[in-house]
């Protein structure tokens, strides 16, 4: 966590405004008076450098041709709040096929026009306020202004050398950038299978193209040829891709926010790779019996700890090998997802003892800070292929149970 410095800004969740944080001001929104506000830190890579301004004297306002889609209307985003809706399988807002947006910029002296076509694939729209988007954008725009300026100087020099001063030349040069579709036909990072091999993009291909294009851009224009240069792919690498995607280019991320989002997704995915399901026949083979006084204790009634419905004498329950019991349909639903007893975490397959019996979340107790240390990789799929001897072996050396890269990722993300 970065220190709370003077660079912090505050965003209002009620009206979407963003303003610099002034410590004596408090956290109330100066626009709508709401206290539903949050301090946001400026990611280090978009931090405006104090020494940065003087060397780039062109403010973004000098780009008259700069068009941007209007920011979303300031509706209350928490009206029907489900903050995780976008992380789950919910597809609204994305997977709607490629979207293409166009941006046009003009250099300060009007000599250069920059036209960008941005093609996005299946990614959710970034949920940032318009003001924050501006903040992300402005440093890039200043950078572009400088680039245009430099290109203009170079071009003028070259023109005067090659053709002599005063020679007729085109007044305008147009650069067209088109980013190529990303290499993820299934829609970017989500829903990647962290356990499976992934098709790799070919960044070197783009780099080769890039060098070629840069080279051709240095050569004098053919007389009579249209004064248009096409640059494809990832031109001046991070800068341009940051401009095109504002922070994202395939698997590479260029902002703290994007990184956070990616990590969130990975953590989410990791949730689903906890202990694997129990075998169907093992589930079906579990003994069912009518609840009796021995099970229910002296009071004669108890609760199924999954559905919290009461169980009375005579009700049918399923009893696991560890003697814990549940409603048949309740425990079946759980075992179909994870082969652990909800109380003691032991597996139901007698041949495969699960090793998490030391972290027993029984009713009335709660997992202590110490049990947090029990590693989350205990149920990783590699355990399934172990014989029971090996399984015992890996139990004594937790953390080494699932080797390789996925094990490392699980170690990182499962615990973190």
């Amino acid at each position: 966590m970065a220190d709370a410095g003077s660079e912090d800004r505050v965003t209002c969740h009620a009206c979407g405004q963003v303003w610099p944080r002034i410590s004596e001001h408090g956290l109330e929104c100066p626009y709508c008076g709401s206290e539903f506000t949050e301090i946001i830190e400026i990611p280090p890579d978009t931090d405006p450098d104090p020494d940065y301004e003087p060397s780039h004297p062109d403010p973004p306002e000098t780009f008259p041709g700069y068009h941007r889609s209007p920011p979303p209307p300031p509706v209350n985003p928490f009206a029907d709040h489900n903050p995780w809706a976008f992380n789950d399988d919910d597809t609204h807002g994305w997977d709607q096929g490629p979207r293409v947006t166009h941006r046009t910029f003009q250099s300060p002296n009007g000599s250069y026009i920059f036209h960008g076509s941005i093609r996005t694939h299946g990614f959710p729209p970034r949920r940032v306020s318009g003001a924050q988007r501006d903040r992300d954008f402005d440093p890039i725009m200043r950078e572009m202004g400088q680039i245009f300026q430099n290109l203009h100087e170079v071009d003028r020099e070259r023109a005067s050398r090659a053709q002599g001063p005063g020679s007729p030349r085109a007044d305008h040069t147009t650069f067209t950038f088109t980013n190529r579709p990303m290499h993820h036909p299934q829609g970017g990072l989500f829903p990647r299978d962290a356990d499976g091999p992934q098709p790799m993009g070919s960044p070197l291909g783009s780099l080769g193209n890039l060098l070629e294009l840069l080279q051709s851009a240095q050569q004098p224009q053919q007389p009579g040829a249209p004064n248009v240069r096409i640059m494809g792919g990832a031109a001046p690498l991070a800068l341009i891709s940051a401009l095109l995607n504002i922070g994202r280019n395939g698997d590479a991320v260029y902002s703290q926010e994007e990184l956070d989002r990616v990590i969130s997704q990975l953590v989410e995915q990791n949730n689903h790779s906890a202990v694997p399901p129990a075998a169907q026949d093992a589930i079906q083979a579990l003994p069912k019996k009518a609840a009796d006084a021995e099970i229910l204790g002296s009071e004669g009634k108890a609760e199924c700890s999954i559905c919290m419905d009461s169980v009375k004498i005579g009700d049918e329950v399923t009893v696991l090998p560890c003697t814990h019991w549940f409603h048949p349909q309740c425990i079946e639903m759980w075992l179909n997802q994870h082969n652990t007893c909800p109380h003691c975490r032991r597996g139901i397959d007698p041949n495969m003892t699960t090793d998490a019996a030391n972290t027993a979340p029984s009713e009335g107790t709660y997992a202590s800070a110490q049990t947090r240390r029990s590693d989350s990789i205990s149920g990783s799929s590699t355990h399934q292929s172990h014989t029971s001897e090996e399984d015992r072996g890996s139990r004594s050396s937790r953390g080494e149970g699932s080797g390789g890269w996925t094990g490392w990722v699980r170690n990182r993300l499962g615990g973190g």
Partner: protein
Amino acid sequence: MALPKRIIKETERLLAEPVPGITAVPHEDNLRYFDVTIHGPAQSPYEGGVFHLELFLPEDYPMTPPKIRFLTKIYHPNIDRLGRICLDVLKSNWSPALQIRTILLSIQILLGAPNPDDPLANDVAQRWKEDEAAAIQTAKEWTRTHAMT
């Protein structure tokens, strides 16, 4: 979709027998979404602070864990700048025998027992390991600034 009986029961019990130092109140228009407050445990850098969290019970709860996030800024090695919490019972060690009540207790205990060896906020954890006294001082300052109103 109708609200499962378990969620209704848990909510009733949370309101009827609240856990000391913890409140969880469902939204009227979305009974799966709770406003949570946790009081910083005594003898911890968070003592005296009241931390706001949001809790959401997913569609398949209790087969999947509740989703919880700190809304109040907090300096803790296992809680990152977005308020996400590193707690195994919220992830792969979730069990349907756990409840909102037990999970919130676990989080309260986590505040009292930071674990920089299993970090989510790496820079905080590193500072915690290198200079624990300074890290605790920062945690106290953040508590004063953000969690005491």
